[in-house]
């Protein structure tokens, strides 16, 4: 048994780490570190830097720009990005639409969309959830009726992350409402967000941030060539994507960075003249989350090792990474807020944007909102309750 990376893996990690150090722009690094909202330009700028390096889509087939990395290298890359604090790579194009097109798309679709996704020319979003569907995806109601060369789409999507930035959206729609099984009659369609009849309405989150939206479709005409795979086979496509495990679910790298930041930050906060790190009560909470993170990193590596050995993804156990990883993220954000004690109350200056007020400690004021924002992590991408159901059923056989 050996818990360390091999010399080759360490060399790869150092290469990635060194390159990130040199190529991550300072302003983006700062924005991420200080929990600032990233603009469309920020996201695309980083996407294009990676694309230029050839690292933006490691898991794609080489012919379309993939790196040919093995599962450990891909994991190392993801975690190093998290550890460096890069802006996120928005997954909707790179990790969701593209794999679907590669598996199910026509040659024409691939040629049309993949290079633009790779180069960050199109910003994609995902139209899955609907009001009332939530975890029960198959209950979706948005209707697409074929009329000649088009589908005419009516309905509503919700929780559409960054729809306000998006050029394209991929949607699950119901093309046959008569089918006996709810999973049948669902199709996978690609819409240009500029198509008439699409309205995006912001859903402001409890921290005041704008990340998600409602998207309304009112007689939206989608050309038939934007259908992926067969009509009525959208559920097959969706299931393929759900099974398309990512190894970075635990977000170990990002949490390690946050832990380091928390320690530095807490050390600077005083209680009775001493650092908060010397306060047993506070420190134990910090220690326990640190231990949990150490454990999760090893658990993740164990899964990787298994995966490399067997060639198979770890299956339902990957839900464990989601559950523990998000709990860790939430605890870290909570401890950041608790570290400042009463100073966590401020939120926004009354008469000026945060950045314009140099007498306002915008970072400290971001801690409570950040804590609030991180509550989403146990809800989105399959709530932690759903993840527990998955382990219960698939791993434990209950």
């Amino acid at each position, binding site marked *: 048994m050996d818990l360390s990376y091999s010399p080759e893996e360490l060399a790869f990690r150092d290469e990635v780490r060194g390159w990130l150090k040199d190529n991550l722009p300072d302003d983006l690094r700062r924005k991420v570190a200080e929990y600032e909202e990233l603009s469309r330009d920020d996201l695309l700028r980083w996407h294009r830097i990676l694309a230029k390096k050839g690292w933006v889509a490691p898991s794609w087939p080489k012919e379309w720009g993939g790196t040919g990395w093995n599962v450990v290298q891909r994991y190392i890359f993801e975690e190093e990005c998290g550890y460096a604090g890069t802006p996120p790579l928005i997954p909707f194009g790179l990790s969701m639409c593209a794999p679907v097109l590669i598996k199910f798309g026509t040659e024409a679709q691939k040629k049309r969309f993949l290079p633009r996704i790779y180069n960050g020319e199109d910003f994609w979003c995902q139209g899955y959830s609907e009001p009332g569907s939530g975890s029960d995806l198959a209950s979706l109601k948005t209707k697409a009726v074929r009329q000649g060369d088009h589908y005419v789409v009516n309905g509503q999507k919700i929780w559409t992350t960054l729809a306000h930035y998006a050029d394209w959206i991929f949607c699950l729609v119901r093309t046959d409402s008569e089918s006996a099984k709810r999973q049948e009659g669902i199709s996978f369609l690609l819409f240009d967000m500029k198509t008439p009849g699409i309205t995006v309405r912001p859903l402001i989150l*409890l921290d005041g941030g704008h990340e998600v939206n409602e998207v309304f479709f009112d007689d939206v005409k989608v050309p038939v060539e934007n259908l992926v795979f067969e009509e009525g086979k959208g559920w097959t496509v969706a299931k393929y994507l759900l099974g398309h495990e990512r190894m970075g679910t635990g977000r170990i790298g990002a949490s390690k960075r946050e832990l380091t930041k928390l320690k530095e930050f807490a050390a600077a906060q005083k209680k009775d003249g001493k650092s908060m790190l010397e306060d047993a009560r506070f420190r134990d909470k910090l220690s326990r989350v640190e231990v949990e993170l150490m454990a999760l990193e090893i658990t993740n590596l164990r899964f990787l090792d298994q995966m490399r050995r067997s060639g198979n993804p770890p299956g339902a156990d990957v839900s464990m990474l989601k559950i523990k990883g998000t709990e860790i993220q939430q605890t870290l954000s909570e401890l950041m807020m608790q570290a400042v004690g009463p100073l966590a109350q401020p939120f926004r200056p009354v008469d000026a944007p945060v950045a314009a007020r140099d007498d*306002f400690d915008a970072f400290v004021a971001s801690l*409570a909102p950040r804590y*609030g924002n991180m509550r989403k992590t146990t809800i989105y991408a399959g709530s932690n309750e759903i993840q527990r159901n998955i382990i219960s059923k698939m791993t434990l056989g209950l």
Partner: protein
Amino acid sequence: MDFEYSEEQQLLADSVQRFIQKDYDFEARKKIVASDAGYSEDAWRTFAEMGLLGLPVPQDFGGFGGGALDLMAVMEAFGDGLVVEPYLPTVLGARIIAHAGAKAQQKAILPALAEGRMKLALAHTERNSRYDLAHVETTATPSEGGWLLSGEKRVVLGAPLADKLIVSAATSKRGFSLFLVDRTAPGVEVKAYRTFDEMRAGDVALDNVRVDKKALVGKKNAGLALVEEAVDFATALICAEAIGAMKSANDATLEYLKTRKQFGVPIGTFQALQHRMVDMYITAEQARSMACLAASKADSASDADDRRRAISAAKIKIADACRQISQEAIQLHGGMGMTEELKVSHAFRRLTMIAQQFGDADHHLERFAALG
């Protein structure tokens, strides 16, 4: 043994609840929060008319001389309605002036407070004080028969709305004193902001602010006991407020569990969620018991240690409860709970702040243990 409100307390609570239902519902509150002032003059006037502002003011000064038990039902209703008006800082101020103010100060301030013509704010917390009430770096230097105050106060709740600030400043190595300072006095600068729980607060910079002899509140160097008593009183009040906000969050969550369907059935039929909802309910009941204790001891503890011990015990339970219920309410609401469109997300914000206000669980665990 009697856990009902008195007839008078109940009548007042009913009228506050009616006011909130009628004039301070979630939509009305949204507008108030978004307004320039961040609070409603109309609501404030109504509070005065209803007698809420006079409640903590002694009868001699046009008030009702109410204690924590009298304020409890009001605070609970305020918690349910997530009222953002600066009621708490006003009560804090009234308490200090009523206890320790000179007759002249009382006459000048208390009737005006009761009538809604004046607001106070307690400027005490500093950058390095955390929850330690004895930690004051702001100084008061004797000068020409008065004092010069210098220092910086942080997160002064209600500061931007207050007419007068009660400022703590060190007057010797042995202690600090309290001073009445006009918010607009030369040398006072208030940097205003919204708080995470949608109230108004500010950082207060004091740069050689000149106050005369009569500005001293209470005896010299005797500030700590005053502030401690007032903050314990206010802590009892936010415990009651928390009960209201928890009830609001629990009710909303229960309703959501009953109506929201997944896989064709209400999600409230899932046993894992049922048990978590039950735990939220039990926690709220246990927290209510401790809020009763806090209010009762704020009014009639046998001595300061008896009061401190009960208040800390209550705040430990309330802080833990705020955390559990706010987090679970959002989680059980799923995505909807994350949006500012549902009231529950605002209850989350207030509960998160109450958990820390006047000392988080760790602070009160330390104080509780020290009291034996």
